[in-house]
């Protein structure tokens, strides 16, 4: 099986601490996957490696039909290849309006010259508005994003992620700081997206993962401990020991 993203045998060490240990992972072009694991299991480091923030000591990360080696690209190139990331803490540009944040994320040319002379067309404004409505910020387009509540920033960041039109979405704890209703909204959005995109969700919250109703990968000490449906992995004795049985 050839997936959209093939990670094989990566390892990374921070000052002697093995954060990722011979990890292999694969995801298809339209698939939803939850990654769970106790603190320090390497979930965020795994995302850092895929997005180019951290260089692994060894292993391979291949992307797409042409099997591009992501380890040779920098963060910006990887993002342009179609990998979008939502951070654990919402990081939006607080000094700028919701519309400016979305406009910046909108899929378009990224080189300085092209951006300098780029003018938003009517379609771009319409798309920004549509995205804002989709994430519940339709009324807030002209507000500075620094004024938004934590939950609204989460939504704005999800909107920015969608604006990039990535093929793979890496979503780090999307439900943190959200109300119950918002969590449900997030769940349905992610499930919906996974019909056409690859979506990897890192999450602590088991209820949230259960609602996603998808294949689960359990990480422990930097490698895959178990993989399968949530019921399958929660029945696994090792998983119970390291994670659930605490």
């Amino acid at each position: 099986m050839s997936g959209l993203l093939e990670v094989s045998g990566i390892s990374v060490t921070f000052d002697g601490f093995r954060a990722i240990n011979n990890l292999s992972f694969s995801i298809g072009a339209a698939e939803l996957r939850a990654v769970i694991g106790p603190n320090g299991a390497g979930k965020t480091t795994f995302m850092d490696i895929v997005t180019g923030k951290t260089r692994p000591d060894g292993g391979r990360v291949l992307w797409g039909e042409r099997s591009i080696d992501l380890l040779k690209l920098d963060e910006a190139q990887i993002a342009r290849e179609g990998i979008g990331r939502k951070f654990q803490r919402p990081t939006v540009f607080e000094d700028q309006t919701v519309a400016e944040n979305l406009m910046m994320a909108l899929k378009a040319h990224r080189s300085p010259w092209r951006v300098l002379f780029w003018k938003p067309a009517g379609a771009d404004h319409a798309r920004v508005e549509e995205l804002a409505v989709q994430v519940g910020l339709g009324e807030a387009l002209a507000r500075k994003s620094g004024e938004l509540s934590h939950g609204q920033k989460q939504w704005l960041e999800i909107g920015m992620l969608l604006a990039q039109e990535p093929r793979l979405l890496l979503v780090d704890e999307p439900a943190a700081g959200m109300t119950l209703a918002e969590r449900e909204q997030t769940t349905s959005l992610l499930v919906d997206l996974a019909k056409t995109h690859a979506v990897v969700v890192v999450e602590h919250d088991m209820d949230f993962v259960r609602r996603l109703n998808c294949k689960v990968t359990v990480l422990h000490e930097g490698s895959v401990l178990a993989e399968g449906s949530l019921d399958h992995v929660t029945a696994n004795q090792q998983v119970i020991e390291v994670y659930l049985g605490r």
Partner: protein
Amino acid sequence: MTQGFLSKNPSVLIFLSALAIFTLVITFLSNAYGAELISTSMVKTLGKTLCLCLIAIAMDLVWGYMGILSLGHFAFFGLGGYMVGMWLMYARTRDIVMQSSAGLPLTPQELSDAIASQIFGVVGTSELPAIWAFAGSLPFQLALVLLVPGLLALVFGWLAFRSRVTGVYLSILTQAMTLALALYLFQNDSGLRGNNGLSGLQNIPGLAWAGQDRLSVWFLWASALALGLGYLAAAFTVSGKFGSVMRAIRDDEARVRFLGYPVEGYKLFVFTLTALIAAIAGALYYPQAGIINPAEIAPIASIYLAVWVAIGGRGRLWGAVLGAAFVSLVSTWFTGGRAPDLNLGFYTVKWVDWWQVLLGLSFVMVTLFAPKGLSGLVDMFDGLRPPQRRGAPLGPDDGALQEREAQE
């Protein structure tokens, strides 16, 4: 520049009108074209101030909008000045040599030797250094005004940004570049007359008939034109998505990378662009100042530049212009010896000595109490009040709201 651009940025129109009115008023009060109420040296001071406003715009772009505290932009300013100064000095010396030969035909070699010994006698050589190869040609030397600082900025920026040096370390690096350049130019064998610098630049070859009265006004016009165009270009740069990306890089460059923008490319682009603006400002400044020497390039000049922009108000173009104009004019007044001494009875404050202390104090004050600088005063006038963002955060999940806001 479409109508949409100007209507979306009304401050550009206001600024350009104010600049035009200022230039006209000075022209009609000058010795050459009007009421003779403003001395020629004052016209020159004002013209130089306009050039300083232009480099302040460059600094605001690179620092206020993009977050790179460059302490090297006066090096580009100085290099621009040196490049135009080489032609001014060479061409004028050539005229003098031709005159003193009194009609006797000189071979090109004799002419070149005579010019070289005139210019370089002061540093004890009589050979024309290789870097003066184009000094006889105005178009070439004007091209070098852009090429030399532009290439230096490009190479330096490429090396610095590629290795992702940021923040204070980058500032130190730019300062080191400036210092190295100044020290190099201080040497007599640098080919630019060492610490003597280039002088007599106020005499424009071929325009001796015009006299300083008229020349000063012409340079005022040229400086105003450059400032206007520079302002327009800068406003265009920061108004659209490019400006958005610049401010985003200032606030969180790692995040910008994950949006797919090549951050290093943007930094290099803006750094080089602003170096070019600085070079143009320098090329217009030094013919009005009349002399350039390596001390002008010393890091302290670039630190002053940062102070002007901070006092004027970072992150808005007219704030930078305001700061540069205000501080440099006040500085001229205080250091010109015209400010009355302040007699405290037990001690007399001589402003020539104490001005620096005053400037330093006001910089600290502005940084602590008025981060928006002078332009914050204009905001107050407009009734714009920034929200008070003090008080302890309510908690990690309510990061956006601070205690006071939450109570409101």
